[in-house]
């Protein structure tokens, strides 16, 4: 699927192909268990962004853009912000801005703590795609300027 001339050597590509799924899965775990164990939206979002940066460093930018385009990342960042603010505004109906209006549930369960997991997911969308966009801009624009 990928061009053998782009990116790093065969060893790096093989190791990347094995590990990048695990890194993405670990990021999703950190995000979704942010209200139970240490972690949360910020750290998990950065880990998710690092998995895509890992692909880009090993395989070159074409393969990474096939997985996650710059425009799609920009859309994800906006979606995260919209989810966060919408949940906050819905809270006005039952109390005040950013009110935790859902059922608290049982502690130590995955579906508990009301709105906090949803806030975590929104923050992870925002942080992950935002840092990925910063990486794309700071790395790729330098290279393209050098070639052209």
């Amino acid at each position: 699927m990928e061009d053998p001339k782009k990116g790093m050597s065969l060893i790096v590509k093989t190791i990347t192909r094995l590990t990048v799924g695990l890194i993405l899965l670990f990021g999703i775990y950190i995000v979704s268990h942010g209200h139970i164990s240490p972690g949360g939206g910020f750290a998990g979002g950065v880990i998710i962004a690092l998995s895509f940066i890992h692909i880009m460093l090993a395989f070159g930018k074409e393969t990474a853009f096939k997985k996650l385009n710059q425009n799609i990342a920009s859309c994800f960042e906006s979606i995260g912000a919209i989810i966060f603010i919408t949940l906050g505004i819905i809270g006005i109906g039952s109390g005040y801005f950013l009110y935790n209006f859902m059922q608290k549930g049982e502690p130590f369960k995955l579906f508990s703590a009301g709105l906090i997991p949803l806030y975590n997911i929104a923050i992870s969308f925002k942080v992950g795609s935002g840092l990925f966009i910063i990486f794309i801009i700071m790395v790729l624009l330098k290279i393209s300027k050098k070639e052209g």
Partner: protein
Amino acid sequence: MLDLQIILVFMIIGALIAVKAKDLLSSVIAVGTVGLGLSLAFLILKAPDLAIAQLVVEILCIIILIRATIRKDLPFSTSGRWFFNTFITFVFIFIFLIFGYFCLRDLPSFGNPVMKIAHTFLSQGLKQTGTTNLVSAVVLDYRAYDTLGEATILFTAVMGVIAVMRSIGRKK
């Protein structure tokens, strides 16, 4: 506390190497060791959330520093006006120490917080929010407005990076 002091000395040595190293790659790697030491210090001070965030952000910063800035090895000139620069540096250090003495004199001693609201969060947090990770409870429930501001800061940072680094529309 001995392990924490060892890590602090290690971080100071790493920072000095980062300032004094001749080539840029060694400096970047020394900055990375400072970040790793900070992450370990957070772990020793029993703050695993901060340790995870610090470690992950440090990795991302190192990657961006190596990939984006390593080709521009800027010459750093220290010749000329040596006396003036040193004099100004010592004046600013002296002013900082005076203000720091007056500011830090009234702080409580290390490890003895007197803030009442932290005890409220610790005792009521699980009952009020249903969250077992109290850092998440503070960040996303009690202080969710701060998190909204932090998200706005990140959005502004992305816009600023795009505005500074773009190639379209830049005058040659």
